[in-house]
Structure formats: C-alpha cells, structure tokens
C-alpha cells in the first residue's frame, strides 16, 4: 500500500515536471504575468508603508510645530515670563525622538548699527530691532529648513557661534548690511561687535530681527539661564505629535505647550489626504492588477483542454486531474511570487531613493505577503479548470467543443 502511494506520488511529480517542461513559451508567459503582479504588489506595499513614514519627515520643511512658552506670556523683560531654558531642553530631549529639533529664543529690544569700517568716526544710522538670543544652528533649521551648510560658507554649525549673528533681510536692507559684515549691537551701555553670517529672509517676523548666540543675549540682558520660549520641530504622524505635546505639557507644569496650529492643523489634514490617496490608489492598483493577472492566467489555463481530455481518457479521476493542475498553478505562483516579490522589493528601494532621496527600508513582512497573494491568485485562476470536468474526452480529441 505504502509502495503504491509512493509510486503514485512519484508519478504525480513526474507529470508536474512534464507539465512545466512541455511548453517553455507558455511557462515563461505565465511566470511573467504572475511575476509582474507580485513585483508591483511587493513594491507598492513596501513603498506605501515607507512613504507615509517619510512624509512626516517631509512636513518638517514647515519648521517648528510646537512652542513651549510661559503661561500667559505676552510681554518681555521680567523673569515671570521666561522659562528655565535648560529644564525645557532636558525635558524635550527625554520625551522627544532623535530627529526632534528644539531651539530656545530670548527676545529683547536693542539698538543695531553697522560696524565701523575705519577709525575715522562717522555718522552711522542706528535702528531699534528685536534681538533674539538662540542656538543659531538649531534655530536656522527651524526658521529656514531648506538651508544646509552649503549656504553658510563662512560658518560651521559645530564651532561655537559666539561673536556671530544672522541679520533679518529687512533690517539688513535698512542698514545696508551684507553677508560677512560686522554689526554693533547696542544694549544700554554695552556694545557687542558681531559678524553677520548671512542675511536671512523668511517672509515672517524674523526678517526684522537679529539672531545672536543665546549666552551672549542672556549676559546682555542679565537673564542667565532664561528663554522667552522654545520652538520645537517634532517629526511624527498627527497622533504622535499630539501625544508628544501632552507628555511634554505634563512634565512642564509651569509652561504652556501649544501646537503651532497653522502647521499642525494643515499637516494633519494634508497628511490624511495624502495617505488616504496613497492607500486607495495602491489598493485599486493591487486589486485590478490581481484581477488582470487572474484573467490572463485563466485564459492560459483554459487552453489546457487537450491535456485534461487526455488525462481523463486514460482513466484519471476529475479530482486527481484537477489536483494536478492546481498543484502546477500553486508552484507557478510560488516561483512567480518569489522572483517578482524580490524584484518588487528592489524596485521599491530604487523608487524610494528617487522620490525621497533616501532608499526605502525593505520590510521583510512584505515579501511573504506578496508571495502568498500571488499563489492565491494563481490557484484561483486555475480553478475554472473545474468546469472542464464536464467535457467528454472523445469530443476533445475529435476537435469539437
């Protein structure tokens, strides 16, 4: 009995092998269709997950999305409306993720004039501006997120920024200050000579401000360790941003942690739209591609009438014949899925690099999913062969039907 079963099984696999070998053209075509489906499935699934994550990073092009400010802060100049900048910074580091950027700001009103070019005294125009003491590197990331080191020829983010400043475009226009010029900050009796790294233009309030190193500002205004507010750029989905905000608020009871609604609201709305669009498009593409592959495969399978007729004629039961063809389809699905799935994952890595400049992280879970889906599609598309059970072998051979 056991020997009988073994020889049966051996026969089964032999037939399967022959089925594959019989028509290499057809085999290639089937693998192509299934592989294409699997590749697109794997690529889109991988890209979809990655693109959503990547989008949250892209949104940081809007700069800060959360502000930590003293409760009810409106005016300047006294300690009740400033915060312990170190405490806030440490808390943000504890709660935030590695990509969180935070910059404290200490605002004060100060006089500003161009630095003297020569020793000969000259009349220089002096204006009142808002000075902002901050961490220049971090602040720049928040204010002009597109700027990198390449735009800042003379200054390296890593060296101490003492003695340097950024001048807002409107201020620069009024005082005729150019990149690299020396400016003088006049606060009471103090005069601070600073080198302007670059004029910055944001289109906002920052254009009429001067940005200097936080320590210098604290010493000038005699407010050591204080900051008027801290701006934070937190990367995450809208839900993650809200969670971060409430965690931060819980740890900083004497501060108000408020979202910059202009960006948090807009981001949430746009993020939902884009991720919805992506999911829906990917779903439609996958379903239609699946159906398309299935129709193509069924078409191929239906051509097997002669084979079915022959097998029935030499005494194969419908169940056994069907099992043979389903096994063949499953194997084809497995092969097509494995080849296509791998191709798709590589494709998505390339696509991710093309779109976001960073290669998409391949997710291994996508691979078995793509393979399984392909096998299912292959089996489903062979299933209509069941209808062939009703054909009479004789009529097939006579070339009828």
């Amino acid at each position: 009995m056991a020997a009988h079963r073994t020889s049966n099984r051996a026969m089964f696999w032999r037939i399967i092998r022959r089925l594959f070998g019989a028509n290499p053209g057809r085999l290639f075509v089937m693998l192509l269709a299934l592989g294409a489906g699997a590749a697109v499935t794997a690529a889109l699934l991988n890209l979809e997950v990655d693109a959503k994550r990547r989008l949250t990073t892209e949104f940081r092009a809007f700069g800060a999305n959360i502000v930590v400010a003293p409760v009810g802060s409106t005016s300047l100049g006294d300690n009740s409306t400033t915060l312990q900048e170190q405490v806030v910074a440490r808390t943000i580091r504890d709660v935030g993720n590695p990509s969180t950027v935070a910059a404290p700001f200490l605002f004060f009103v100060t006089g500003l004039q161009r630095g003297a070019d020569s020793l000969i005294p000259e009349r220089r125009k002096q204006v009142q501006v808002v000075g902002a003491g901050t961490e220049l590197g971090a602040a720049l990331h928040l204010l002009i997120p597109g700027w990198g080191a390449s735009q800042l020829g003379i200054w390296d983010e890593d060296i101490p920024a003492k003695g340097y400043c950024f001048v807002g475009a409107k201020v620069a226009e009024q005082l005729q200050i150019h990149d690299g010029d020396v400016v003088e900050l006049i606060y009471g009796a103090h005069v601070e000579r600073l080198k302007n790294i670059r004029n910055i233009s944001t289109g906002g309030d920052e254009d009429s401000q001067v940005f200097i190193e936080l320590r210098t500002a604290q010493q000038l205004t005699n407010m050591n360790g204080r900051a008027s507010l801290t701006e934070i750029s937190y990367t995450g989905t809208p839900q993650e941003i809200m969670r971060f905000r409430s965690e931060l608020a819980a740890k900083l009871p004497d501060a108000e942690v408020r979202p910059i609604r202009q960006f948090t609201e807009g981001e949430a709305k746009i993020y939902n739209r884009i991720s919805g669009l992506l999911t829906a498009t990917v779903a439609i593409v996958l379903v239609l591609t699946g159906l398309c592959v299935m129709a193509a495969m069924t078409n191929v399978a239906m051509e097997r009438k002669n084979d079915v007729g022959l097998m029935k004629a030499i005494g194969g039961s419908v169940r056994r014949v069907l099992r043979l063809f389903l096994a063949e389809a499953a194997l084809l699905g497995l092969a097509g899925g494995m080849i296509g799935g791998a191709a798709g994952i590589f494709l998505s890595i390339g696509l991710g690099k093309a779109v976001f400049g960073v290669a998409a992280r391949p997710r291994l879970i996508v691979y078995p999913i793509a393979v399984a889906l392909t096998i299912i599609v292959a089996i489903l598309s062979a299933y209509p062969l069941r209808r062939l059970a009703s054909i009479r072998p004789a009529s097939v051979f006579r070339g009828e039907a």
Partner: protein
Amino acid sequence: MFLRLVADSFGRRPRHKLLTGAALALGMAVATAALSVALDVGDRLAKEFRSLGANLLVTPQADSLPLEIGGVDYRPVNSGAYLPEADLGKLKTIFWHNNIVGFAPVLEVPVGFAPLEAPADTQTGLFHTPATRVVIGRTTLIGTWANHLVSVPDGSRFLTGADKTNGWWKVDGRWFTDGAKECILGRSFARSAGLKLGDTLQIESPKPGILLTVTGILTSGGAEDNAIVAPLAVAQKLADKPGVYRQLSVSALTKPEDAFAKRDPQRMSAAEFERWSCSPYVSSIAYSIKQVLPGADVRVIRRVAEGEGQILTRVRMLLWLVTGAALLAAALAVGASSAASVIERRMEIGLMKALGAGSGTVGFLLAAEQLLLAFVGGGAGYALGIILARLLGEGIFGAAPEPSLIVFLVVIALATGVTLLGSAIPLRRASRYKPAPILRGE
C-alpha cells in the same frame, strides 16, 4: 474572407476572447485610474495646502522695522507707513488673479479695555465718558476682514478675509460681521480677562472708546490668542488711520518652484522672463502683486511656500511612480495574455499555412484580431478606470477628476502597443513553424 475569419475566431472561442478582453480591460482600468489620479492630484493638493494659510506677505516698503515680540508691537503708534485699503480690489486684476484664493489686510492697534456688564449706548456704539470706566488692561486689537466683499475694478466682487487666509483659526461662536461693532477674542485673552460670548467690551485707545460685542472666541495657537480681533474699520477708527492697513496676507495657488523659478527675474532674457511670469511660481505672483500695489513690499513666506513646494513635488513624483508601476504590471499581464493566446493557436496557424497562407497573412489576421480586442478592451477599461478615479477623487478630495482626452489616447495606445508587442514575439516564432510537424502534433 478576412473579416469572416476574424468574426469566426470571436464566435468560435467566445470565452477565450472574453477572458483576454477582461484582462485587457482590467489592465487598462488600472492605467486609467492611476493616470487620472496622478494628473489631477497636483491641483487638488495645491488647494489642500492653502489650509496652511497665506504664502505671501505684503507690507509697506517705507515701513519702519516692527518691534514685535509675542504679537505685541513695541513701536510708537504713529511710526511706520501704511497702504491704502482701496487698492486691494486690484489684486484680482493681475494675470494670476484666479490663483489668488484669498487675502486679508491687517491693522494692529495697542488698546486698553474694560469689560462692560450692560451695554450702554448701543445705538451709537460710542462711549463718551471714558473716565467713569477703569481700564483694566492693555492688549492688541487686530483689525482685519472676516468675510468681506471686495469690489474688483472690473465690476465683479470677491469674497475674502481672514476666514480664508487663516484656515486654522478656530472660532467658537461666530465671526464678527465686517462693519459691525463686534469682535472675537483670543482664547487666552478671554480667559485672563474673564470675558465670554455675548459680553460687551469697552475699547480705549487715545481716541474715544468704542463698545464691541464679543461674538466668538478664537483659538489660533499664535499671538492672536492674546489679542482682540475686530473689523478693520474699527481698528482704523481707533488708530485714526481711515482707509489704510499695515500688513496684507495673500494666499495663492502656486506651482512648486524649480531651479528656473529661483533665478533673479532682473537678469533673465525677454523670452525667459515671459516664461517665468507665465508660470504661477510664488515669486512671479509676488512680482505681479507688486506691480499693482505701489509702495508695497511683497515677501514670500518661505516656510509655507517651500514646504509646500517640496511636499507637492514629492507626492506628485510618488504617484507618478505608482502609476508607472501599475502601467508596467498591466502591460506585462496583458502582453502575457495575448502571447499565450497566440502560442495556443499553433495548430490553427499550422493549418492556415498548410492551406497556403503566407506568414504575413497569418500575422496580419492575428494582429487584426488583437487590435479589435485592444480597442474594445481598452475602451471598456477606460470607462471602468474613469469610474474608479471618480470614486477615489470624490472619496478623498470631494471632487472628481475631469475625464481627460489625453488619458484616453494614452490608454488606447498602450492597449494597442501591449497586445501587438505581446503577440509579436510568439508570432515571429510561429512564422518559422513548418506546418507538417504541427499538424502531426509534434
């Protein structure tokens, strides 16, 4: 005879033709849906991005530097320059007037305020005996438009205001009516001053006081949370600056800036300048606004404009790639299907050749069959794809993409190309067949 052969092939193997047609139609439906969405998404998303508010800021050129910290301007009231409100209609006359979705002028006045329990002289709204009331605090009054009908010089009218440019402002209650003695209060301000909806507020500036009724509480997440927002006319009266404003936010639909857009327009050649000003870049819109508002300085709000451009470019590219992948998969599957249908017809081909048909005639016959299928399948697929794209567009953006002729042409061309290419390879092999072994079944 030729037509009869083709018709016979369809009639004799209806199920085969149906399946090949279905594969084609489904493949082309994918292509249509993905293409329609990818073509449409830029415009739709650009509109969504307007919820981020203004991307252009207009200020007087001669203005002194604002000393603004936390939304409070520390400049003396009378310093600085102003722009005339009457000019604003001209914004809708520029070349890109259809791209301007909204604008709102702003005039800020530092004021003192005192809550008033019972509205006194509501007919005139003027409060003539300020000495009897004690000013309890100082804040900023922001004068702007809520929903204001602007007369455009060409005779039409345009409804705009802060409701359009500052979409993230949340007003509990309702916006004030422009021209009425009403205001909305920033959330933090309302809480600290103990004011609520329906209260009346006496506003003091160096000018005689005005009584304002609170119609809403504003949550903005910015400096406005600590301010009073009132109609522009009220602020003008308080500041004694009739018909002027100090700052204008403009929200415009733009095209993401590329390297060309970032060049200095003054150094472009005439042809380049023409091309630049005929593209809705944020910088070229800023340029044309400057032309109609004399004395104004128009600045691009970089965070908004650049962030928007970057994300739009990325998303559009992403969708094009998804579309490309979908097209590829559809093409391969459909091509495979047509290839298979030719491979399986070896017997038929052999028979035709045995009867004396040349390779060209056989190829022509099969190609005609495939083409017919491509047109029918492609057309059906296009219809199905358009319906899917509609559902998608309506579900996500609330508006369906317009069916476009280009998509139809591309889809039909793709269907034809793919089926022909799919059948061409096996047909080439078929042309080398010798009829005899095939008919013998070898």
